[in-house]
């Protein structure tokens, strides 16, 4: 029996470690459900007071929610950048992703439920479009046949930050290349053209209109509807999560089996 205790302790330690690791994984955001929950939770806390009354006049919305930082004519100021040549695509992108409006200039860009209705956003885009220049809101068609090309362009130009299947990745500081699981096809093409946040932008010579649409199709049809033929996807984070499972589930189960077969002495 004296020898038995050591083994139980090692078993205890191993079990505790494995549980901690499992908790780590479960706690972390899995891109499908976890992220959404987290986003929603955050949105409730931060967004509630900002939810404005429904408003028909886009000028009123702009003057009330945007002009504080960007100026009533969109020229910008000490608190926010000029909108003069960002284009309607930027306005649309920042509003549909919920990146804007923010309450404080230091608040990071984070995907949220949009503050305005679709109609309000369209009206705002049109209104702001009246005094700015730049890329327009693109028409995007998601098509099965474009996925192959889209994947190639994505891996060459996007995977280095957004990861090979769009689960996102950390960059330096608080800037994060976001996961692409909720990004709409229009937002994809807009982001390519305007380079939101810390992302570089791509001109039509760099990524042609056709290729940009292809990337949007790849994201809509493969990143957002992945081919998980192998079973549970483990979040598609790569070998890290697989290693964790091989220890927690694999070695865990086999040690339990060994404990049943052998004597715990």
């Amino acid at each position, binding site marked *: 029996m004296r*020898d038995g205790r050591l083994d139980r302790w090692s078993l205890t330690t191993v079990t505790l470690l494995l549980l901690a690791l499992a908790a780590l994984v479960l706690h972390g955001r899995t891109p499908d459900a976890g992220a959404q929950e987290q986003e929603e939770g955050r949105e409730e806390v931060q967004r509630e007071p900002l939810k404005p009354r429904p408003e028909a006049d886009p000028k009123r919305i702009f003057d009330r929610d945007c002009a504080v930082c960007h100026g009533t004519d969109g020229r910008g100021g000490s608190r926010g950048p000029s909108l003069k040549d960002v284009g309607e695509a930027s306005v649309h992108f920042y509003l549909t992703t919920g990146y804007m409006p923010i309450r404080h200039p230091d608040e990071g860009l984070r995907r949220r439920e949009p503050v305005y209705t679709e109609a309000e956003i369209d009206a705002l885009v049109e209104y702001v479009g009246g005094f700015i220049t730049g890329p327009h809101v693109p028409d995007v068609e998601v098509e099965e046949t474009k996925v192959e090309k889209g994947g190639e362009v994505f891996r060459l130009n996007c995977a280095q930050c957004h990861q090979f299947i769009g689960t996102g990745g950390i960059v330096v500081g608080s800037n994060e290349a976001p996961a692409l699981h909720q990004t709409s096809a229009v937002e994809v093409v807009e982001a390519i053209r305007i380079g939101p946040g810390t992302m570089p932008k791509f001109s039509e010579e760099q990524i042609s209109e056709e290729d940009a649409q292809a990337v949007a199709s790849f994201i809509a049809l493969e990143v957002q509807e992945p081919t998980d033929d*192998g079973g549970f996807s483990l979040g598609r984070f790569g070998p890290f999560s697989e290693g964790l499972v091989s220890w927690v589930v694999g070695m865990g189960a086999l040690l339990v089996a060994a404990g049943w077969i052998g004597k715990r002495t």
Partner: protein
Amino acid sequence: MIGRLARWLERRVGGSDFLRDKLSKVFPESWTFLFGEIALYAFVVLVLTGTFLALFFDASHTETTYFGNYSPLHDVEMSAAYRSTLELSFDVPAGLLMRQAHHWAALVFVAAIVVHLSRIFFTGAYRRPRELNWTIGVTLLLLAILEGFAGYSLPDDLLSGTGARIAYAIIESIPFIGVWLGSLLFGGLFPGEEIIGRLFTLHVFILPVLFFGLIGLHLALVFRQTHTQFPGPDRSEDNVVGVKVWPTYTAMSVGMFMFTCALLFGLGGLVQINPVWYYGPYDPFVVSINAQPDWYMGWLEGSLRLFPPWEFSGARFMVANPFFPAALLPMLTFAALYAFPFLERRLTGDRGEHHVLDRARDHPLRSAVGAATITFYAILTIAGADDIVALLFNVDITGLVVFLRVAAVVGPVLAAYVTYRWCRDLAAGTAEAASAGTHGEAAKDEGGDGEQGPGQRWSPRRRWRLAFAGLAAALGYGSARRDRPPDGRS
């Protein structure tokens, strides 16, 4: 039927005395002695599934395109190696199951070796006469890591190509011969045109042959030298207490084999691993964030990430940065592993033969060294996926790297200290308990279900409590347990 077969063989080959002798050999039944068997049976699964895969895999760099069931990669330029891996995944019936079971088996194989090695280490099972088998075991670990890396590199997907790229840079950093060696192995400057074919030869022929030889030798030595056993009633240096190889131990071992297969095929069917179709084919100018190696290479990736920007550069020669964390560190690691039994012998002067195992607590220094080692490599492994950790916890990667650099130095020292104190307290606790006369409770139920022992016999709950009190004391929260009578009378 078995009897008839045995008779048939006996008339032709002879050797019934040998067989009788071996079949009545006695093996101790501790569950911790099954860890090595897990590794062995994972290896068997690797050989079986690997043979299936090799029938379909095309180890070549030849440029080709794919038009199988997975449409998102149609018409994309790729190597034949990558195409055949896609076909194995989507177009060969049961191919994906075999691929995934093979990969899970590889991960579990190395994990089981590590657990097995830890058991051997903490119980001092490597002492004379088993130093030789320890060195064989360490060699098997080394080969397993190499074998795993070779296999990981074969499909020529984005992650495996990135791994090969880093391996090339590590080889290049070796003084004197690095650049020549890299170009020689890869067949020219990276990416070369040879590496997949050569890794395939290594993966399915050279290393497996070594595995078969060394595993055979490893087991033959266990047979010849007899198995160690934990101390217990009637157990001594001169005997082995357990069950006979035939039939009971064989049945237990077959059970372990079946469970290993069940787990690996279960994981292979239910949990997706290495989905190369997401990674895409490798191109030297394409890269993805969150690229990591399989877990057993994580410590090397981690040491590459954590090692400070130092390199030694003279007027004509330089020792480049990757050499230290990725060439020197593994060399030192395995040198230390090989040397440990001999080093301990020299330091302790204990040259005697040992067949009865130590308890970890009775050797606080050894246990402390073990805990520090495990902590160090665990931190490096975490660092090998620091971008994922940063993503999951939403923290700044630069801050995390600095934290891990500190942890890699402080963590092992802390672990050693805590383990040392813990062992000391536990050993003291055992001694006190023994002197308090608790061992009177110990019932000797021979032939029972294993709860025998001449020493103290505590309820499981008490053991837990004592363990945690010991840990708390080691961490400096007062040695509560020492102030109380160890048997809990208050």
